[in-house]
């Protein structure tokens, strides 16, 4: 079994959740999100983020508005929608359940 592949699969599963978590609270633009995800080692290459952002937006979980920037062209600032917040809460619960389940299995050994 390929260890790297399994790790990548695990990360992949929670990546969308993490993106929503990062954006939740304050509007952010892509580079801010990248900083956050990179520092927590969730993503390796930046190109990963953009298809996900577009998909989350098209699914109605995210929305964006254009904002002027002091350096360079205007930027897209992303925000979590109400639907996105509901999704986030549900995902949060199942994440907690998952962590709890793993913990229990580990301790029972």
């Amino acid at each position, binding site marked *: 079994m390929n260890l790297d592949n399994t790790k990548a699969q695990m*990360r992949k599963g929670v990546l969308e959740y993490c993106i929503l978590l990062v954006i939740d609270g304050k509007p952010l633009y892509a580079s801010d999100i990248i900083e956050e995800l990179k520092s927590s080692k969730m993503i390796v290459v930046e*190109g*990963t983020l953009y298809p996900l952002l*577009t998909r989350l937006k098209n699914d109605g979980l995210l929305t964006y508005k254009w904002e002027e920037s002091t350096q360079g*062209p205007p930027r897209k600032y992303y925000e979590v929608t109400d639907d996105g917040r509901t999704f986030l809460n549900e995902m949060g619960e199942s994440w907690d359940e998952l962590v709890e389940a793993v913990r229990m299995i580990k301790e029972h050994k």
Partner: protein
Amino acid sequence: MKKTFTINISGSIFHIDDDAFEKLQRYLHMLNRHFGVAEEGQEILQDIEARIAELFIEKTSNKVEVITDSMVDEVIARMGKPEDFMDAGDDECSTKTQPEGSLQDGDQKLRRRLYRDGESRVLGGVCSGMSAYFNMDVVILRVIFVLAFFLYGAALLVYIVLWIAVPKAKTTAQRLEMKGKEATVSNIQQSIKQEMTEVGENINRYKSSSASDGNTRRERFGDVVTSVFRVVLRVLVLIFGAVLILIGIGSLIGFVTSMAIGHSFMHDGPWSFGWDSNINMAGLLQQFISPAAYTVSLIAISILAGIPILLLLFVGTKLLFRYKTNNKLIGLGTFGLWLVALITLIVIGVNQVGNFGKQTSQTITQKVDCTKCKTLYLETTDDLYQSLIEDHISLDRMKIAMVNGKEKMLGHPQFTVEKSSTGEYLLLIKKRARGSSSEDAQKNVEQIEYNFSQKDSTLRFDPYYFLKDDAKWREQEVSMTLKVPEGKSVYLNNNLKDIIFDIENTENMWDGDMIGKTWIMTANGLALKDATLTIKK
């Protein structure tokens, strides 16, 4: 020393090295292929381009001004290649959008596509886009287009069709495609060769795959068949496209000349290429369509015939140059326009028929003052118009002649001889015309101009009657009857041949044979005066 390009990524200007430019171009093309042409894919691409621009701005902010090869490498490493992207979505989708061998393709320079260049545009960016595609100076193209606007209005239509049909280059990848590898014959050849090699590879793979694995073998065989099929199809499509363009250009030239310069339109139909006539479509229509409907019908005819021709050109260029378009919109739009033109023409046609509804005539009886003479000599004046008449166009009995560059409508009158009930020669001139009402028909009768003159015992007829300038053709006709009293004679000069019509005579002779002879009116009808003369002959 290195060559530098100036490029625009997501609204920011950068200077970039020659080799760095090539690398970036390949990378963006790869991404473009990965994400596909759908709206979603293009949005992702624009976002990524914005990020790339941002990274370049960071890198070029301190001292270094030109983007180098290593900077591009760094950025690509940061952004990652499509296969590095973790796609959390359904895997089917990602395999579908990433065609096999996209990396291979990424290694060659992009194939060129036709786009509109929105950044150096005057109107729609059609000319600037074409200049990029054909490697021509944009100024030359613009001058050609502007000249064409003034010479033929059709050029405007071509421009508008291109404006609608050719997509604007939005992303940097598209802008790079716009200036990509030229679609020259050798390049097309090359791309076909490449696909041929692919066929060869597939066949080899098929051979090498052992019979033990039935499934793979079958799949490989499928690969071979599809790749062979693809090459054949591509060649056929190219040939078909070229043929369409040739037919399209040919018809366009034929059509435009028939509208503007003129050829035998009525006789041979709009697709013939006869150049033997000086009259044009517009001039012809003017002769019988009322002024209000004239312009509308010209436009309608242009659209009716022009749209199929432009569609031919459009499909042909699309097959050859492979640009992307909104086919549904273009199809429906042009079909709608075409239908409107057809209905307009039908309505005008029905109205025109109404203009021929009533017929009226006007007869003038003139006494020919020749009581003493025994024989009346009949002849016509010289025919000055024969060489000016357009042989191919005739409206019933009338013809069109070009006199000093202006169309003039004329026709031969009909001349016949009958017995007079009085003791005198009488000339009856009957003018006829049609119109939407009796009054209108009467007005149209008055548009006829016809003259004859008498000198002693000679009657000289004009070989033609004319319509006054700006009069419309409404089946105007002129017929004349000369009443000859019994015992008196007429001499029919040879030059009467064009106007005599069905003169009854006791010899049952055809009109053409009656000329050049003297005829006497007897109780039984017109008889040859010197019968013995003809018998001798």
